[in-house]
């Protein structure tokens, strides 16, 4: 077993972890990919993998996870980006636009209007201009 390799990974990452601890006061970024049956059919697995990959490439401090269906099967694959309590939902995603999405939303703090989904009655979707 190569658990020793894990210890090496742990040591190598020590510096990055310290930096992360300093950023701990900022609201947490989290991306949730809708992984229901229809989402999977429309390619949610590739979206999840691509988001994880691009988060690493851009060196972002973002948690990527999955959830059951968002209930909007016609615009799958979808994801929701949380920043603290703020939530923005994106739909009709394609793997090749994930980088643009992350750069726009997380790096520049803007909303990628072309793929934004406003769910009626979902107060978490209210855009925050602050």
């Amino acid at each position, binding site marked *: 077993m190569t*658990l020793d390799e894990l210890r090496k990974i742990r040591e190598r990452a020590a510096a990055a*972890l310290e930096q992360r601890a300093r950023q701990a006061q900022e609201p947490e970024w989290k991306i949730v990919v809708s992984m*229901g*049956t229809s989402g999977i059919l429309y390619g949610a*697995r590739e979206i*999840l993998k691509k988001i994880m990959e691009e988060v690493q490439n851009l060196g972002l401090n973002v948690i*990527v996870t*999955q959830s*059951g269906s968002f209930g909007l099967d016609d615009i799958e694959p979808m994801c929701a980006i949380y920043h603290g309590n703020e939530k923005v939902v994106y739909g009709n995603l394609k793997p090749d636009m994930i980088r643009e999405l992350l750069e726009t939303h997380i790096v520049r703090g803007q909303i990628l209007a072309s793929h934004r989904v406003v769910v009626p009655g979902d107060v978490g979707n209210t855009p925050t201009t602050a």
Partner: protein
Amino acid sequence: MYELALFMLDLVQNALTAGATYIKIWLDEDFTRNRLTLTIADNGCGMAPHTLTRALDPFMTTKTSRRKSIGLGLPFFRQLVESCGGGFKIKSRPGCGTVITGWYPLDNVDQPPLGDWNETLRALIQANPHVRFYCAHRRNQRCVTFDTLPVRRALGPHADALWQSADMTTWFREQLSAS
């Protein structure tokens, strides 16, 4: 769905929605007995017999899918194995969890390709750091198992921060592709 890996992903998502913290995924390709068996066991909330009947009925479940957190995944998987000349079994107990098993003959022309099995497992493992995954893949006499618990232990207090790092992606990929 066109890959067995996607069916597995769908069933594991059900387990996650059921609040599972420990999910076992067994894939057994037994060419001597000409049988593929996929078993997914979780320690989620489980289902009462009444809910279980509904879970297998696509027409009953679609309407309540959001509330009940059960979609078409289970009926799809059942349809797949039965159309491949195999069988399907589900056992569930409220508070204990659920075990789903499906099998079909390996010489069947209707069977889907395995798909990107290891990458699907890796994505599941990395996207759910707090869930323990135990994966076993047996191909004839060779069996490869992977458990995420020792990994978490080896990473110690940094497990959460490191789990989705590029280093860990490489490491998981290597470990899983050993099969």
